[in-house]
């Protein structure tokens, strides 16, 4: 670790790793710091990602793919199951990763491209000069140090403290923080080719419960509920324990993890003077599915590209870095985030009776193309009595 770099990246998840790799390949001196002692662990993720989305960033490799998925199933409160097969579900189904290995692979690639990687090193505060970020004060295995950089890319995940300390408000409102718990359970009977999503206010209020296969008889069984529904006795872990006791009473839990998934809108601005914010820290998680890996890699890569140009041009002001912010907002990802936020805001208002009605109306149809917009159009067509309510959904598409 040196005391001066072109680009400093705070956080060694997929966003930070793609930023580091891209920036190093462009010829910058790059340092990636990770506060944990090991890249990739502990995992805080259900590990699902769409196939096409993943391929935009890395060639799939069996070393870090736990399961290949053929269908997704949505299970309504009354048990009605909507099965979405791969040929129609497109990017909505895909792989279940082994994040411990996947994250390491990404960081390895960044290191191979020339980035320095330092673990057990935590950014405690930005180095500021006239309001501009000029690097970070760090604690590296307990020793204080300063790392100066032209640009700092904050990829510090759900905590998002670096950007906050540089003056951006990253606080997630309680109702838009999904409080999550997950067990990795083995020796259970599952459909190893299906990711299952259980909906309903008894199962997972304002969220969903998932069973994502990790092998023939192993799965990530997890849940996210809205923070506002979380209280003693009704926490994520309580709902999960109830589901597991009922559905997998003889399973063996080999991992127990927690996590917080922000499903708010993205930060109003993801750049500052000498600062860029990417991935979960920028709040670019898909608010409908909670998926964040692909968006993290996308924003990490884009940020590094823009930072490289700005460093070459000798101007890393907020204004100069703004093409990153404008770029992801104008992208397909940015548009999907905005649409899915509106769709999510509608779905969290539904009680179980309405969820059942909607699920029943589309249970036996065969959509030519499955996508969020195709599904919504079908729901609108088949539920004329709910037309008024569904208007907000319709508006989300336009």
């Amino acid at each position, binding site marked *: 670790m040196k005391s001066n770099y072109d680009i400093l990246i705070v956080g060694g998840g997929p966003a930070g790793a793609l930023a580091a790799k891209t920036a190093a390949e462009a010829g910058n001196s790059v340092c990636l710091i990770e506060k944990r002692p090991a890249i990739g662990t502990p995992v805080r993720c259900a590990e699902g990602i769409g196939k096409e989305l993943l391929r935009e960033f890395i060639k799939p490799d069996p070393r870090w793919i736990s399961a290949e998925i053929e269908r997704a199933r949505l299970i309504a409160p009354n048990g009605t199951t909507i099965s979405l097969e791969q040929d129609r579900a497109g990017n909505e189904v895909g792989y279940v990763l082994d994040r411990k290995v996947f994250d390491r692979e990404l960081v390895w690639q960044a290191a191979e491209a020339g980035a320095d990687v330092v673990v057990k090193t935590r950014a405690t505060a930005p180095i500021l000069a006239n309001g501009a970020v000029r690097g970070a004060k760090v604690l590296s295995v307990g020793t204080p140090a300063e790392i100066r950089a032209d640009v700092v890319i904050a990829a510090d995940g*759900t905590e998002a403290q670096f950007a906050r300390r540089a003056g951006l408000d990253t606080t997630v409102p*309680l109702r838009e923080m999904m*409080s999550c718990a997950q067990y990795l359970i083995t020796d259970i009977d599952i459909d190893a080719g299906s990711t299952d999503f259980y909906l309903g206010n008894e199962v997972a209020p304002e969220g969903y419960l998932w069973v994502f296969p990790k092998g023939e008889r192993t799965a990530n069984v997890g849940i996210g509920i809205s*923070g506002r529904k979380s209280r003693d006795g009704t926490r994520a872990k309580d709902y999960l324990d109830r589901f597991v006791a009922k559905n997998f009473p003889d399973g063996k839990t080999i991992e127990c993890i927690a996590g917080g998934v922000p499903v708010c809108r993205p930060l109003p601005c993801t750049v500052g003077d000498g600062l860029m914010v990417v991935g979960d820290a920028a709040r670019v998680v898909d608010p409908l599915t909670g998926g964040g890996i692909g968006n993290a890699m996308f924003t990490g890569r884009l940020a590094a590209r823009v930072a490289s140009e700005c460093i070459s041009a000798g101007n890393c002001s907020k204004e100069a870095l703004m093409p990153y912010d404008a770029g992801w907002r104008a992208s397909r990802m940015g548009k999907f985030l905005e649409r899915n936020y509106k769709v999510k805001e509608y779905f969290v208002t539904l009680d179980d009776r309405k969820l059942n009605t909607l699920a029943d109306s589309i249970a036996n149809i065969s959509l030519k193309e499955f996508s969020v917009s195709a599904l919504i159009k079908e729901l609108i067509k088949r539920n004329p009595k709910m037309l008024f309510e569904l208007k907000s959904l319709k508006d989300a598409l336009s």
Partner: protein
Amino acid sequence: MLRINRDKCGYCGTCVAVCPEDALELIDAYLSLERECIACGICARACPFGALEVVHEE
């Protein structure tokens, strides 16, 4: 004051992200109260495992 039950804590950082005061910090593998807590209880609500408790002193 905020009481952290480290035996229950899952070290996930959910509390850190919802804290309006930036008072909590997930350091390596433990959660720590690093700055002044206003005892608002938002973190205790969000915690998936129920590891946080606001204790009002007499």
